[in-house]
């Protein structure tokens, strides 16, 4: 049943992506009317999947690679729905949906081929759960910041080229994108900070490599924000930095 919910969520995101492309091909500036309902439907199925996996393990469902991917996707979608609309980043869906679809496709393949099954904890540690959940939510925010960075660079290039394509009219203003970038980086860094602080209260101290990698990711984002607050980085440089930082964070996650 849990896998069925994950498949339904993945299909909803695929549908959202297809509709966004259809809207774009029809030269509509607005996203398709079903885009948001599909994202919400996808979120509901993701949540059901995570709930069922949580019930299976008796703890936060991030016990294997597939679940981690779904959890990151869940945080991306929830942040997109909660923040994307507020920042008028409606087209973020066009960029978000394929990424979420692909990541979840990997998760499905992983769970079909190598699902390790239930992994109940010997003893439930709420600090460990908090650490893991906050860290992955932070990754969701960093992923969205990276996507907003890509959108900023695309929009900047379109404006500089003097030949804006159809995509240009569907994209948000670059000022909103740079504002969203800073907010998403701040949210992600704050969530990661909570995750790292929580790790100090865990029953079992994290491995040195785990601590080092998490701290390195936190340091990269914290430094980026400090430099931006101090020097006011040009938005283009900030966009590049958000993309590069997320690539680094992803590599760090893979290393763990």
């Amino acid at each position, binding site marked *: 049943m849990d896998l069925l919910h994950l498949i339904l969520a993945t299909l909803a995101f695929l549908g959202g992506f297809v509709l966004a492309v259809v809207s774009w091909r029809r030269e509509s500036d607005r996203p398709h009317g079903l885009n948001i309902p599909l994202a919400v439907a996808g979120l509901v199925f993701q949540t059901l999947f995570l709930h069922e996996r949580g019930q299976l393990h008796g703890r936060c469902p991030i016990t294997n690679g597939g679940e981690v991917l779904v959890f990151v996707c869940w945080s991306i979608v929830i942040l997109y729905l909660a923040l994307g609309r507020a920042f008028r980043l409606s087209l973020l869906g066009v960029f978000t949906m394929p990424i979420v679809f692909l990541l979840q496709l990997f998760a499905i393949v992983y769970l079909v081929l190598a699902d390790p099954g239930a992994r109940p904890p010997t003893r439930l540690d709420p600090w460990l759960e908090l650490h893991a959940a906050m860290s992955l939510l932070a990754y969701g925010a960093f992923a969205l910041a990276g996507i907003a960075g890509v959108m900023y660079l695309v929009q900047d290039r379109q404006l500089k080229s003097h030949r804006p394509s159809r995509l240009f*009219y569907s994209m948000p203003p670059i000022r909103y994108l740079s504002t969203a970038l800073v907010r998403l980086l701040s949210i992600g860094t704050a969530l990661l900070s909570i995750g790292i602080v929580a790790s100090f209260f865990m029953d079992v101290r994290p491995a040195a490599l785990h601590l080092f990698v998490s701290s390195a990711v936190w340091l990269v984002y914290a430094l980026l924000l400090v430099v931006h607050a101090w020097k006011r980085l040009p938005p283009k440089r900030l966009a590049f930095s958000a993309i590069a930082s997320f690539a680094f964070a992803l590599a760090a996650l893979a290393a763990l």
Partner: protein
Amino acid sequence: MSPVSIFCLGVNHKTAPVELRERLAISEHSVPGHLGEICGLDGVEEAVVLSTCNRVEIYGGAGDPMAALDRLVAYLESHFAVAPGEVEFYRHADAAAALHLFEVASGLDSMVLGETEIFGQVKKAYALAQSTGTTARRMNKLFQQSFSVGKLVRSGTSIQQGSTSVGSAAVDLAEKIFGRLDGCRVMIIGAGEMSRITAQSLLSRGARSIIVSNRSYDKAQELAAELKGEAVRFDDWENKLDEIDIVISSTAAPHAVVHAAAIRRVMERRRGHSLFLIDIAVPRDIEEEVNGIDNVYLYNIDQLQQIANEGKARRERQIAICRELIAGFLREKGIEALAALPDGRGGEPGRNHPDPSGRPLTHP
């Protein structure tokens, strides 16, 4: 129920030059009087007058639309100093009349394809006729449906989107850079007509303040007063640039007046804020290298015109989609104003939709 049919008679920007349209134009305050007289014509039972700068149209209900249209033409010729035969009015009856109104309300028949003002004008014309008491079931149904179709077309297509003029292209680009223009500050360098028009477009979309600089300070003051802005001396404009978001330059100088070096200095002080430069002058006022500076976006008159041309083409490509939507609407709902005509011209949904060619009784 009497076998009342609906009709439309009119001229628009495609069929009559402005000299004729202005003679036929019916001012808002005189519409009720004319509506009363039109409804007094033999056989005419309902009437709505739509008079805008691009069209004068009369919609109505009559037992015999052909005879009513002839009487209406005679009425217009006698009341508006038009010689018989001088104006070739288009005439539509029944489904073709309804389809014409639906296309008008959707902006498909407008000079600027997809413009939204016409929708409000149609609503106003109907409200005026309704308050005058010259509408009944047919016109009420017809106009209510035209509002539904207008909304459907606007929400279901991109017909009203994209720039169609240099001014609107500049405004659309500004909105893609800054988002809402509320609070954006605009500087005009050179008090030309195009600068004034572009600045007015920006002000109408919420731009906050205007600074005008011109070699002739008197002219700068004159334009600043008109735009409720501030005039600055020509050798002082660079010092004001730190606070500006959008610059419109249109001087008659034979050489560049805005140099890349000056913009680089300004951008160092702006802490990441974008700057949008619109160069309408020929020869150009702003050095091309400026566009290479981070966060600075420079557009000249040709580039804006190109965007406007693409916007027009884009709207034209939407026409087929709009017509599909209207046809779908008519297949589903039919034309309610023609419903239950005893001779079978109306009836159930799907039966009374017009010939897709929309062929009128006379030309367009």
